């Protein structure tokens, strides 16, 4: 049996039957990493010794009859999530030596069940980017075609799952950073409702938009990870006090009623978006047909403020970033420039040495938009437009349970192809940004391949806290499509 092909659900079962051990499973993944990681570059830090030690403990726990759902399951973490005693860089030179003294709440939850934490994955610096090319350490390659980007900013996590370096991974999503790389790597990515998952220990980029979520091989695994990571946390005052359902009931709902009775809306504004690749449109049309065959009724809807989403987002996110990133000043953690005698000069040199160009660009935009005289015109107005975007969504969800779109307008572009013009890169986030602006959940499910063999995905969004509908529809779609090949062949 090829252990590295196992999903979380299958590995759980085989572990519980003691047909495999966690040490065997972990070794199988680490062997893949040894063979292929040089080509892919999914990880910033690998913790092989730690992973094997955790696997040994997990096996003892299972033998003692105390298996929890994630006991012994190898998981990778985006390197924006704090791990006690394991370097957490955020893909930035400024935190190149940072070793957190505490775990993020989601990491604590994984450790509590004795999951095997295999390593920390690459990302665009502080999650600012859509290609993982903005990492200070390496460029991650798309496992389906190594000349192409894996998407971003959780590109390392998506590539690690696609390359079968782990059973599943956690990413973070501020404007599509889970869903878009999942789409580009033909894996499943879910951004939960804002507040579903504690952000404690997630290094903040834009606090009102950031959310942690799963990147997995299939929809069933996404449901299993949601069961583990969701819930209120006193350490994050924005985490919701909403009851957490058993997300796997979505799969039972599908088995019982397929997708009958579900309505999916397609916003007319999305159809007119410029620059959609014809192969993405064709994939999307096929997806609609598949969902209809499963009982979904497709309805036309409108999200009238769609043309303003990118502009409003690229004010709000940089404003929050300029405020959040002010803390990296060379005093409490990270690097410091030691050449300065003056404190202001020390701050300046530290930051400009430590932050890459995209981060400095966003800090400057945010500082400008928040500065006296410009605040009302930029931040104030963008926040008002955000209210209108939220209202668009609540009206749309009076008419449907799901909103359908492609995840990205094109398949993954080539490495280096899009680095010259930041605005073009920003515009490619058109379908994913809205979910963060409105706080609603969104899922990315593999939808097929382009003629060049590059993955493309479909996105579904749902009402606040209705991840169950996303998982049910995603499961139905995945099962009906039965996409082949499931994995890239690496060399």
């Amino acid at each position, binding site marked *: 049996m090829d252990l590295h092909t196992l999903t979380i659900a299958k590995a759980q079962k085989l572990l519980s039957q003691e047909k495999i051990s966690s040490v065997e499973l972990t070794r199988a993944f680490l062997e893949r990493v040894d063979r292929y990681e040089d080509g892919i570059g999914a990880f910033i830090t690998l913790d092989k010794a730690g992973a094997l030690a955790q696997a040994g403990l997990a096996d003892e726990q299972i033998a003692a009859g105390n298996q929890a759902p994630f006991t012994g399951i190898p998981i990778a973490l985006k390197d924006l999530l704090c791990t006690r005693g394991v370097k957490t860089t955020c893909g930035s030179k400024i935190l190149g030596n940072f070793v957190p003294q505490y775990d993020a709440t989601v990491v604590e939850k994984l450790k509590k069940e004795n999951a095997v934490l295999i390593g920390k994955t690459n990302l665009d610096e502080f999650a600012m980017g859509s290609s993982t090319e903005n990492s200070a350490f390496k460029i991650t390659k798309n496992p389906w075609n190594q000349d192409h980007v894996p998407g971003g900013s959780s590109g390392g996590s998506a590539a690690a799952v696609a390359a079968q370096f782990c059973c599943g991974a956690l990413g973070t999503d501020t404007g599509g950073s889970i869903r878009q790389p999942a789409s580009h790597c033909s894996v499943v990515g879910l951004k939960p409702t*804002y507040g579903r998952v504690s952000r404690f220990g997630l290094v903040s980029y834009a606090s009102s938009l950031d959310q942690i979520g799963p990147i997995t091989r299939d929809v069933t695994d996404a449901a299993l990870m949601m069961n583990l990571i969701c819930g209120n946390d006193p350490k994050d005052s924005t985490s919701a006090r909403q009851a957490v359902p058993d997300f796997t009931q979505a799969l039972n709902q599908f088995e019982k009623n397929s997708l009958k009775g579900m309505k999916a809306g397609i916003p007319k504004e999305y159809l007119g978006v410029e620059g959609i690749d014809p192969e993405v449109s064709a994939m999307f049309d096929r997806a609609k047909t598949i969902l209809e065959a499963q009982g979904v009724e497709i309805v036309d809807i409108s999200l009238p403020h769609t043309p303003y989403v990118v502009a409003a987002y690229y004010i709000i996110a940089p404003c929050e970033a300029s405020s959040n990133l002010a803390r990296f000043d060379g005093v409490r953690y990270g690097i410091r420039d030691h050449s300065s005698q003056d404190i202001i000069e020390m701050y300046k040199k530290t*930051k400009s040495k430590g932050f890459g160009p995209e981060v400095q660009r966003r800090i400057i935009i945010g500082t*400008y938009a928040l500065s006296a005289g410009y605040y009302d015109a930029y931040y104030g107005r963008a926040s008002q437009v955000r209210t209108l975007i939220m209202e668009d969504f609540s009206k749309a969800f009076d008419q449907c349970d799901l909103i359908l779109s492609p995840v990205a307008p094109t398949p993954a572009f080539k490495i280096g192809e899009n680095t010259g013009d930041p605005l073009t890169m920003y515009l490619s986030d058109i379908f994913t940004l809205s979910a963060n602006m409105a706080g609603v959940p969104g899922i990315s499910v593999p939808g097929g391949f382009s003629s060049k063999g590059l993955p493309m995905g479909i996105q579904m969004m749902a009402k606040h806290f209705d991840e169950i509908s996303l998982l049910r529809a995603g499961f139905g779609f995945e099962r009906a499509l039965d996409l082949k090949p499931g994995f890239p062949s690496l060399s």
Partner: protein
Amino acid sequence: MKISTDEIEKMAHLARLAIDDPLKAALSVQLSHILDYIDTLKDVNVEGVIPASGAAFLNNVLREDVRGDSPGPDVTLANAPERDQDFYTVPRVV
């Protein structure tokens, strides 16, 4: 240019960034381009619209103050680039 190199310089100072001249020039061009695009927001009628303060639908979240254990200086200062005993140190300010 919507945003001049002088304004970039001013913003860089406010944000405590040391940006060299070539980058200043590049940022002036790129940011002007981005801000032109962002001007599309002026087309939206926002009269009377309450600005969104976030995506969490919460009121104030309150709790009782509870005394917890301090992690202590060695944990707190573990990542300090420079320290003197139990204190962070910075270049002389006064």
